[in-house]
């Protein structure tokens, strides 16, 4: 498995292709999160993270996914620092012999990364900067698993 926390941009398509090789692979599910400009006012997004804890927390989530589902591999890339609108923020990919496992694990990884990995988003518009508030729906999503 591969976990990368980085400020550099990445190429989601190239990552998907590099991840999609290997014997016995049948199903690959990927999720890409993109900086979204909900109402056309976003100038930039800044992501703060807790270096050290971030890697530990993501690794624990990945280990949990590997224990719950039959997976051949997991990829997690999450950026921090300043990101522009339309840029990929993060990516998760799962590889399995079976599509149900690949789907469930990717969905699970996203839910946990969203609420349990120490990243914080700050949005900057012409009116100033605000920290993105966590949504109850994201916390509630964890109860599915």
């Amino acid at each position, binding site marked *: 498995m591969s976990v990368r926390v980085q400020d550099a941009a990445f190429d989601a398509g190239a990552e998907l292709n590099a991840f999609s090789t290997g014997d016995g692979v049948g199903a690959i599910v990927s999720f890409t*999160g993109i900086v979204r400009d909900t109402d056309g006012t976003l100038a930039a997004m800044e992501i703060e993270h807790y270096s*050290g*804890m971030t890697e530990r927390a993501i690794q624990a989530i990945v280990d949990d996914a590997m224990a719950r589902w039959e997976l051949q591999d997991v990829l997690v890339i*999450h950026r921090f620092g300043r990101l522009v609108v339309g840029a990929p*923020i993060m990516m998760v990919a799962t590889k399995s012999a079976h599509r149900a496992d690949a789907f469930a694990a990717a969905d699970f990884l996203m839910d946990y990364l969203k609420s349990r990995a*120490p*990243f*914080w988003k700050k949005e900057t518009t012409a009116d100033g900067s605000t*920290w993105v508030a*966590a949504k109850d729906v994201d916390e509630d999503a964890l109860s599915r698993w």
Partner: protein
Amino acid sequence: MYFAWVRERIGVPFEDVQTTAETVSDLVAELSAREDRYAAAFADVSALRVALDQELADFSAPLAGVREVAFFPPMTGG
């Protein structure tokens, strides 16, 4: 250590604190009594999360043996 708006309210990303507080809640009370900026940051602990040595913990958790305490708002990654 402080992150996101907790860091901004307290004004520093990290600091060395010597304390005899037994739990996270005790430490929060101690810091809040010390200066207004802590009181402002810790006004509503239900809006905060805490990690002890880089693991999420409860505010009732003991501090004995803990080297790194971090306060931050709920995560918004992904």
